[in-house]
């Protein structure tokens, strides 16, 4: 049986201190991600202007677990839809309309459907925002080109076996065009 695993709900970690390497092509960042995974830098990340396909496997991040949120939120919305209409029409305010059943549930279907979709969608997006750490307007931007045409490899200070000069030479060895050491004190 397929069960949700905690690591599927991987969270975005703030990029405060570490090493940033900038690459020019999607192939280069794929290669870099694979090498960083081999090196076992825990918690490393790639910064991409668009979703590069296959980067998840290269980085070793598991598939997102958000469909589980959708599933349970959908069940929740569906239950609310059924119970709310049943309780109001059959119990709280029963109206006999030309002898029809008080609990004429066929007529509840449109609203049950809408509530299911609504809560499934909204809760999933809320979960996405939570996991991606948005909204946050005071976030530091490492390099302006990373949302346009270049690709970043981020190795945080918290990574296991982090040694600044070693990491810098590792990223340079991968062909990083620009390698910057990011420290909290040189933040704007």
């Amino acid at each position: 049986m397929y069960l949700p695993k905690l690591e599927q709900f991987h969270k975005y970690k703030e990029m405060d201190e570490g090493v940033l390497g900038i690459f020019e092509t999607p192939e280069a960042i794929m290669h870099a991600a694979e090498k960083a995974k081999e090196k076992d830098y825990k918690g490393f990340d790639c910064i991409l202007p668009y979703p590069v396909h296959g980067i998840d496997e290269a980085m070793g991040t598991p598939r997102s677990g958000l469909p589980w949120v959708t599933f349970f939120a959908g069940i929740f919305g569906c239950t609310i839809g059924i119970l709310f209409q049943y309780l109001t029409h059959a119990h709280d305010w029963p109206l006999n309309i030309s002898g029809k059943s008080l609990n004429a549930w066929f007529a509840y279907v449109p609203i049950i459907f809408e509530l299911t979709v609504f809560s499934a969608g909204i809760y999933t997006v809320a979960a996405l925002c939570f996991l991606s750490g948005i909204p946050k307007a005071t976030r530091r931007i490492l390099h302006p080109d990373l949302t346009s045409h270049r690709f970043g490899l981020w190795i945080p200070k918290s990574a296991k076996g982090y040694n600044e000069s070693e990491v810098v030479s590792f990223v340079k060895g991968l062909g990083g065009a620009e390698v910057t050491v990011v420290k909290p004190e040189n933040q704007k």
Partner: protein
Amino acid sequence: MSLAQAVRDKLDIPDLVTGGKSLKDVTVDIAKPNEDFPTKLWWNTFLLVLTITLIDVAIIGYLFYEGLYLLGINNPVGWGFFVVNFVFWIGIGHAGTLISAVLFLFRQGWRTGINRAAEAMTIFAVLVAASNLILHVGRPWLGFWLFPYPNERGPLWVNFRSPLIWDTFAVSTYLSISMVFWYLGLIPDLATLRDRATETWRKNLYNVLSFGWVGSARSWSHLEIVSMILAALSTPLVLSVHTIVSFDFAVSILPGWHTTIFPPYFVAGAIFSGFAMVVTLMVIAREVFNLKNYITMKHLDNMNKIMMVTGLIVGLAYGTEFFIAWYSGNEYEVFAFWNRAFGPYGWAYFIMISCNVLSPQVFWFRKLRYNIPVMFVASLVVNVGMWFERFVIMMTLNRDFLPSSWAMYTPTLFDYAMLIGTFGIFFTLFLLWCRIMPVIAIAEVKTVMPQKEGAHH
């Protein structure tokens, strides 16, 4: 040249982004309209539609002050232009969701060039539709009565078995899910604009709008999954919304309305009119913002084909309605349709047929599918025709069961003002949006570029 590119060339598959653009060119080209000072053309159009909107707002205020008697509605035609506009605009909205959701699920790469604008069109069209829905109740300040809320008047609840309440739930769910879907896709692009901004105020604006998006691969992986989920949720939502709108008519017991064909017929019509509106807007946008490399003739060709197919579907629906009316042997049903085509509003019926069924047939010819003026005119004609379709359906009321209560519906100046006003509001919102946000999904276009396959490296 990569193998994939060679295969594309051999099979003559056109590129979705032409002109040999690099990733950076894409950003620069698409962000340009957001960064430059608006052109004179933009200002003139904007001032025109803004004036229409402001006049409309003033007229709406007067309408509330005086009451709905200013409109042409009477007994038996109690529904008038507001509901015609409502159904028309909500139908326009559907193509946006269809392009972004259904084509996404079918992995249609060509949607990336047009999906952003189409989604924005959806939001604004649904907003306009919802405003018409609220206006037509006559006392809009009591509009909240449509929602089930705990009140102090004892156990008093809305009637969940009423199509009006279904409408409320369907439209508000559709609006919120579409908005979330649209904005979620915009966040990375707004981050791009933020990082390109040079002025402080612009940087701050986009910083807030982009929610502090960085582009981390972990976030992208979640975002991609959520886009897929929202696409999968919106697809049945598109069908349900117009189905429920058609229930407003179909669950009544009126001849001509009380038919099972209404839900699919309404959905097909919605897609039809929506695609026509997308073509209208895209033809303008690619000229005005110089986006011919992103909205290629191939995109327009695909949309024209969809317009032609959905045009045939609505044509089939018109024919089926007539056939079933005759085949049912129900004389009231037969009369309703006879009256539609040859009664006092027969002219509207034939406008509808010629605009919706005949005009899209020009797209059988490849030459005309690739002809900008032809498709522009055809898309406008289809929009007119689809508005008349809803008008024709509404006019079924003018001759009901009792000949003694038959009456004609004559729209007043206020009705026409409301109709023109909806276009004013729609285009004002759309033009403002074009200035602030990218009209093409920057990040998504990059995923379908030839560079991805290494062609330009």
